[in-house]
């Protein structure tokens, strides 16, 4: 597996506000990488630098071997980007939006036509091709945005908070699409602040906090590092305390030691959210 995206000491300041600090990150070719963190952690800034929209203050990003600052055109040919907010022209139909993206990426007329009909099938939007974007459901709009980013067959797809605002069905359908794209060879870089999304989809996750990368591994390994089993104790009916253990036996031994009036005790598998909270002392989502 090659390194498809490599950042070295990537740093970005907006004025005096530091958005990202000394980020060293390697994204492998063919993986689904999840970039986790609360709002304002520096995820979107990192994506904006990777996708040539913003210049880094210092440090570098190389995608497929090309530097994003010095060779942006070569980078643009291999990246597809789906922004957090919908970025379609809502006065046009789905097909027109696709044609627009295909034109911007220099696809010839015959190729455009072929690619558009293939992709509409692929994301199951063929029936809605001639509908105005504004008349689509949230999940369909998101798939339309994804399909627009795929026209030039990017090698890596950036998805910034792809499921924000979607209902449960829309979200699962989108997850399936992401998995399918990945199986068909596209490297995926996605940001999310939904922990279960990262757990469901990602081969590896990185956790950002105040512009720093504070953890980087597979979800499984991160959980194991913390302790695979969590014990939640509700103290005085108002405060929940968490302890983590390597296995259930160790957790059970701990529970035995609790006083009888300890309140509600829950033993469960630990999850990524536990990892994040322990690492940062904060709930994801900025609560």
């Amino acid at each position, binding site marked *: 597996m090659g390194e498809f995206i490599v950042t070295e000491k990537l740093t970005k300041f907006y004025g005096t506000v530091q958005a990202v600090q000394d980020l060293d990150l390697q994204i492998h070719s063919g993986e689904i990488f999840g970039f986790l963190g609360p709002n304002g952690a520096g995820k979107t800034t990192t994506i904006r630098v990777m996708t040539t929209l*913003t210049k880094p203050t210092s440090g570098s990003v190389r995608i497929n071997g090309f530097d994003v600052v010095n060779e942006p055109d070569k980078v643009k040919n291999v990246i597809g*980007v789906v922004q957090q907010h919908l970025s379609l022209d809502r006065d046009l139909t789905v097909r027109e939006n696709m044609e627009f993206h295909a034109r*911007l990426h220099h696809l010839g007329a015959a190729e455009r036509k072929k690619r558009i009909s293939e992709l509409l099938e692929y994301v199951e939007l063929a029936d809605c091709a001639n509908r105005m974007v504004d008349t689509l459901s949230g999940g369909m709009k998101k798939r339309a945005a994804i399909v627009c980013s795929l026209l030039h067959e990017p090698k890596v797809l950036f998805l910034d908070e792809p499921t924000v605002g979607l209902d449960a069905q829309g979200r699962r359908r989108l997850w399936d699409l992401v998995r399918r794209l990945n199986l068909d060879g596209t490297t995926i870089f996605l940001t999310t602040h939904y922990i279960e999304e990262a757990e469901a989809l990602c081969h590896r996750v990185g956790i950002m906090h105040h512009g720093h990368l504070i953890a980087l591994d597979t979800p499984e390994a991160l959980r194991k590092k913390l302790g695979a089993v969590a014990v939640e104790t509700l103290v005085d009916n108002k405060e929940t305390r968490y302890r983590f253990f390597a296995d259930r036996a160790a957790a059970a031994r701990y529970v035995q030691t609790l006083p009888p009036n300890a309140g509600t005790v829950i033993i469960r598998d630990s999850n990524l959210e536990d990892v994040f909270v322990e690492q940062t002392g904060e709930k994801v989502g900025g609560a």
Partner: protein
Amino acid sequence: MLNALKDVYSVLWVDLRNLRRHWRSTLATSLVQPILYLVAFGYGLGGGINVGGVSYLAFVIPGIVALTSFSASFNGAASKLQVDRFFYKSFDEFLMSPVSLYSIVVGKALIGVVRGLISSGAILLVGFILSPTLMVNPLLLLVLFTSCFVFALFGVLIALVINSHQGMSTFSNLVMLPMTFLCGTFFSLSQLPEAAKAMLYVLPLTHSSESVRAAALGQPFPWLSFLALLGFGIGFFIGCIVALKKASV
């Protein structure tokens, strides 16, 4: 070069699609003002007046044509770009594509040119019917096209540097409205004191209305004004590129 032109067309294409869907209301809106001016000033006020040997109606029509090229081109380019930036949020898609900044600027300006030419062409047609002394000649068409292009680039520039709808309406009231009335559209600058004249020659619409009027009435053509207009165009274009480069910092 050929590829750059193709890119320009790709950028324009999406706005043309949009226009095709809304052309009736777009055209109607952009014609209300000039027609009101034509009626109020051309007929109402200026019925019996002569300006430099021509009827006031014949004098004012080219001014209104220049004004229309200004407002329709400026608004046509600026409003679509602002919608792209703040409402559809689709402008980043241009920046993330392999299309160069130059092609983006020209492509985004061209929708203003198209709308400016349609609207000012319509007014010209009306004017031609009302005042047969007007001449439609290649020079007039050249000046009109240049005006539309310059003002569309102006619109792109302003839409890139002003980051809110509030700011746009402030700009439109503080800059565009005074230009509408002062830049030689409704009266001849020769009546003004030198200082006022000098100030008005700093504004591009003054050069546009003088050039359009001279071409339409067959008067000696003010090539210097035409050059000044081109100069404004180049300045606006450079401004757009600088604004776009700054945006990615």
